[in-house]
């Protein structure tokens, strides 16, 4: 019966709407998606503006006021060095946000394109490269990250490259799987028969079709990467102190959890709202694009 109704709808006057506009339309209707998007926008705006709006200098150590409970002066209290936890929580996501956003873009670009190319080429190349990718995926990612960063140091650029590189493998798999659905489609055959170059086929024919899967996967990769970055930071491999960072803040202030829980809650709330926001958004995005969330899940 689907067929019938679809055909009927096809005959209705043309809607001059691009797929993008359609997606936005669907997204707008979803509560989760809008909440997610709001959280994300809030965090991005905060990261941009926080240095100028914080009530106190986040690095200022006010020795007499250590481990203070929340007050009107220190909304989240202070840590054991007497720094204002509210200000630190506000700015504590800046490095994480920049590193993971760039890292995600990098991962999706190189991983996505490699995946599409492999799916398109098929044959021996695909087989061998995928074996390497599978082998790399078998190593626990935290170990890989720790290894690379302990060698190369905690420079944010190095971190961006490292994250972008390691999270690219999952993007390869996702993009390749999505591409395999399309390579046998006749429009790809038509492009090959026309004599189009491989680059054109990958970029113009295949990429637009797997883009939705990649976008959803990218959103999820971002949230995984944030967790990854915070874990590293928790272990002391994130940012160089005294620059504040949520993960590191949580790690350091665990000791005073009993006396000053807000020193942990503050950064934890910030980190989790961002991650929840990203997840809500990617869920809604998947729905708006008509994808099954399971397709976009990292391995």
């Amino acid at each position, binding site marked *: *019966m*689907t*067929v*019938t*109704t*679809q*055909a*009927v*709808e*096809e*005959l*209705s006057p*043309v*809607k*001059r709407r691009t*797929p993008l506009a359609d997606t936005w339309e669907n997204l707008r209707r979803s509560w989760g998606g809008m909440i997610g998007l709001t959280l994300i926008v809030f965090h991005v705006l905060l990261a941009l503006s926080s240095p100028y709006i914080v009530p106190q200098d986040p690095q200022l150590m006010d020795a007499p006021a250590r481990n203070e409970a929340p007050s009107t002066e220190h909304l989240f209290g202070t840590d054991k060095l007497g720094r204002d936890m509210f200000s630190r929580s506000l700015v504590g996501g800046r490095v994480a946000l920049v590193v993971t956003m760039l890292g995600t873009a990098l991962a999706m670009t190189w991983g996505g394109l490699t995946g599409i190319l492999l799916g398109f080429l098929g044959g021996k190349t695909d087989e061998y490269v995928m074996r390497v990718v599978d082998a790399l995926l078998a190593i626990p990612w935290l170990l890989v990250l720790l290894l690379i960063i302990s060698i190369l140091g905690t420079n944010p650029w190095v971190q961006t490259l490292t994250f972008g590189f390691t999270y690219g493998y999952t993007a390869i798999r996702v993009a390749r799987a999505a591409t395999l659905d399309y390579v046998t*489609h*006749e*429009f790809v*055959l*038509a*492009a*090959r*028969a*026309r*004599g*189009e170059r491989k680059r054109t086929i990958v970029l*113009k*024919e295949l990429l*637009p*079709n797997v*883009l939705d899967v990649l976008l959803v996967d990218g959103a999820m990769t971002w949230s995984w990467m944030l967790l990854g970055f915070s874990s590293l930071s928790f272990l002391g491999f994130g940012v160089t102190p005294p620059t504040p960072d949520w993960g590191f803040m949580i790690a350091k202030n665990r000791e005073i959890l009993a006396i000053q829980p807000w020193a942990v809650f503050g950064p934890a709330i910030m980190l989790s709202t961002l991650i929840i926001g990203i997840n809500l958004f990617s869920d809604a995005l998947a729905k708006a694009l008509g994808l099954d969330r399971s397709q976009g899940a990292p391995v």
Partner: protein
Amino acid sequence: MSKNLIEVENLSIGYYNKGGKLVHVLKNVSLSIKPGETLGLVGESGCGKSTLGQAMMGYLRLGSQVMEGSILFSGKDMFGLSTRDLESIRGNKIALIPQNAGEALTPTMRVGKQIIETLELKTNVSGAATKNRMIELLGQVRLPHPEVMAERYPHELSGGQQQRVVVAMALAGQPDMLVLDEPTTGLDVTTQAHILELLRDIVAELGTAMMYISHDLGVIARVSDRVALMYAGEIVEDASAAEIFKSPAHPYARGLLASIPRLELAGIPNSMPGQPPIPGSLPGCSFTPRCPFATEICSSEPPELKMILQTPHLVRCHNWEKVVATDFSQELKDVYHIVEHKAQDVSAIELSDVEITYHQPNMIDRLRRTPEPPATVSDITLDIKRGETLALVGESGSGKSTIVRTISGLLPAKSGVIQFENCDLTVNVDKRTMDLCKKVQLIFQNPDASLNPRHTVAEIIDQPLKLYFPKMTRDERRARQIELLERVRLDGRYRLRYPGQMSGGEKQRVAIARAFAAEPDVVLCDEVTSALDVSVQAAVLDLLADLQQERNTTYIFIAHDLAVVRAIADRVAVLYQGRLCEVGTVDEIYSPPYHPYTETLMGAVLVPDPDTEPKLLASDTPELAPPAKGCAFQRRCPKFINDLCDEVTPPWQYPQDEDGHKIRCHIPINELLVV
């Protein structure tokens, strides 16, 4: 008069679209079927046939609702029943046979087991009796060796055999009525003809009523006692099969019948302009914009479905009297027109001894020297003239697409020569010059798959323009896009549409425009009209013929519909299992002497005339690979000669001269002349 088994009364089904507006799918549909009667339901795609079929089973598409009316099955209201009662009617009293048999079967379960499950669920047969009944059912649908077949998995059966299993499952509960939704669409002509004969026999034997849904008027003519014609969600004519095919009284029926290519008539039929509107969107008759008989009243007053003459013949038309007054058979003769074009006596593409195989021997095969299986396509020698249309015909798996893909460089040839203006076409497309790629273009069967869903029409047509004419500026390309769209008779404003916003016929036109954007010398058409409605098919054929005339293009045209081939081709090559059986001009192929395989194909063609019976010669058991030696057709040939056909490759025989008609068979020409 016996009582009706099912009665659809004034049924309207609709759904609310995103904007909250009511969209009708069916509008005031009334029809009835008596026990043992077969009603054929025809109409273009999207006119609501499947919706009606599903509604008869008590199914509604998610979001749709019954606006008014009812369906009474043996006096019970299908939409008033509880789910439980409905479930017990479905399969037991009324069963559905869908289009895609493969999908209806569970891939991981042996077919015998699946039938047994249905039996246990739907009937009170139990114990050892179920197995016997299962075997009996498989025998009833004429599967050879039912015991062996029962042990197979669906993928081990051919499409036709799968369809038979689905029929057997539907018959399990001994239903009073079958609803069949395009059950043979997508099957080979021979398989289709066999399945239809089977259904006819079963209905006659068991007294089952059928509602047979199809867009193929040949099929409808073969199975139906009565025919209901649907247009834009309404029944517009309802009459006995004989009447509707001989003297249709609705202009839409006439239009449809006049747009079918015919086996016995050369030339391309008239196409019907336009496409169906959304049901209920026009104030008067839905057919007005396309109707040659339309008068003033038609655009304001919706016509009633009324009984005409004395016979039970219902028509929904204000001007039916005028329609009936014009002689249909005379009208039919005038619509077929031949588009004149001259093939030159210069070769465009020459194939000699071409052999193509999918087999790739691995290391072990090479070490063990395993003998290679016979090639998928072998021994193809054809000379295609410039400006000519050569049709490749044969059943599914006969290697038609394989040959065309090799010519376009997507598949390598194993051996042989393919020559095009001194260029070698056996090489892969990567190794061809851009100029060569430009000259040979390919159009596919399914426009849904051959147009990138993410590109607008402008982007789609721009691709070959950018690729082959790099010097063109943006504005020149834009102008050219519009010109090309106009040539395929689409408005220039279509540039901004996405494939999802167009109908099947429009999409296929865009695909044609894309191919012609390259200004090709040779166009390879792989089943370009088989996914289209008859009304659109004629227009696409016409378009192809016109384009050919303008540029003297050479076509290689793959089709399984012999009537379509007759309409458009100059010469025909008949293929079986990748081997040529017969080559000749259209007139030579469509008259005796026939190759036994050509004769089989011709016999299976269903024509839109209820009085013509198909002649089923060979069995429809498909083969997976060509035989190792002898004639390719030996295993199915009704004229098989023992110890000769299975041993010796038959010679080419020439009824006239060596350049013309040729038939590859051991039987002498004068015997083949006797049909």
